[in-house]
C-alpha cells in the first residue's frame, strides 16, 4: 500500500470508468461545496447567531423560500457524495479484504439513508401558512 505524500491530492486514476469519474466529481463537488458550505456556515454563524435560528424561524424564513431549499438540497447532494466518497478513500487506505468491502458497503448504505433523510425534510416540510 503506497501513500502519496505530495502537495497535491490523489493521483488521477488511469483507464477511465468509475474511479476516474469519482476523481473528477470529488473536485467538482469540492468547488460546489466551497461556495455552498462556506456560504452556509457564514450565514448561519457569522451573519446570524445560532441561538436565533429556532425550528419555527427556519420554517418561516430560510425554508419559507423555495430558492433556499433548492440551494440547500444541492449542498446536501454535494456533501453526501463528497464526504462519503472521501471516507471511502480513507477506508481503502487503512483496510483490505473483507473489512474493506464491509465498510465500503456500510458507507454506501449510510450515504443513501442520509441523502434520503435530508431530501425528505427539505422537500416535504410544509410552507408556512400565509
Amino acid at each position, binding site marked *: 500500500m503506497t501513500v502519496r505524500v505530495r*502537495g497535491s491530492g490523489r493521483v488521477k486514476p488511469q483507464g477511465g470508468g468509475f474511479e476516474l469519474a469519482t476523481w473528477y466529481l470529488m473536485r467538482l463537488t469540492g468547488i460546489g461545496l466551497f461556495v455552498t458550505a462556506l456560504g452556509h456556515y457564514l450565514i448561519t454563524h457569522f451573519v446570524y447567531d445560532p441561538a436565533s435560528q429556532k425550528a419555527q424561524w427556519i420554517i418561516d424564513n430560510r425554508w419559507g423560500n423555495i430558492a433556499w431549499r433548492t440551494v440547500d438540497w444541492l449542498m446536501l447532494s454535494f456533501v453526501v457524495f463528497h464526504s462519503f466518497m472521501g471516507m471511502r478513500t480513507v477506508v481503502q487506505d487503512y483496510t483490505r479484504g473483507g473489512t474493506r468491502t464491509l465498510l465500503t458497503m456500510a458507507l454506501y448504505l449510510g450515504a443513501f439513508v442520509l441523502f434520503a433523510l435530508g431530501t425528505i425534510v427539505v422537500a416535504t416540510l410544509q410552507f408556512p401558512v400565509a
Partner: protein
Amino acid sequence: MLLQYRGGPGMLAWAFHRISGVAIWAFVLLHVLDIWLVGANPTLYDDVLRVYASPIGRVGETLLGAALLYHALNGLRIIVIDFWPAMTRYHRQLWTASWVVFVILGVPVAIQIMAPAFGLNAPFHFGG
C-alpha cells in the same frame, strides 16, 4: 500512516486534510439528523440548538469552522495543482497563501461566534 511523520508541507497538508475531512463527515451525519428534526420534532430541534448555542457548543462550532475553512482552502490548492501542474513550482507559496487567507477570514468569524460565550455582544451586525 497518519503517524509516520515525514515532514514538509505536503505531509502536513495531507494529514490536516484527512483529519478535517473525517471530522466534517462526522458533523454532517449529526447535522442532517438534527435538521431532519425541524420537520419531525421541532421542540427537540430547539433543545439541540440550545446545546449548539452554549459556550461549549460555540467552541465546537468554531473548531468546525476551522476544519471547514482549512479543508476548503487546501482543497482549492489541490485542484489548482491538479489542473495547472506548472503551479507545483509554487506549492510552498500556495501553502503559505492558504494559511494567510485562513487567518484573515477565520479570526473575525471566530470572534463573532465566541463573543456571546464571554457575555460580550457580537462585534458585527447585519440588520435585523
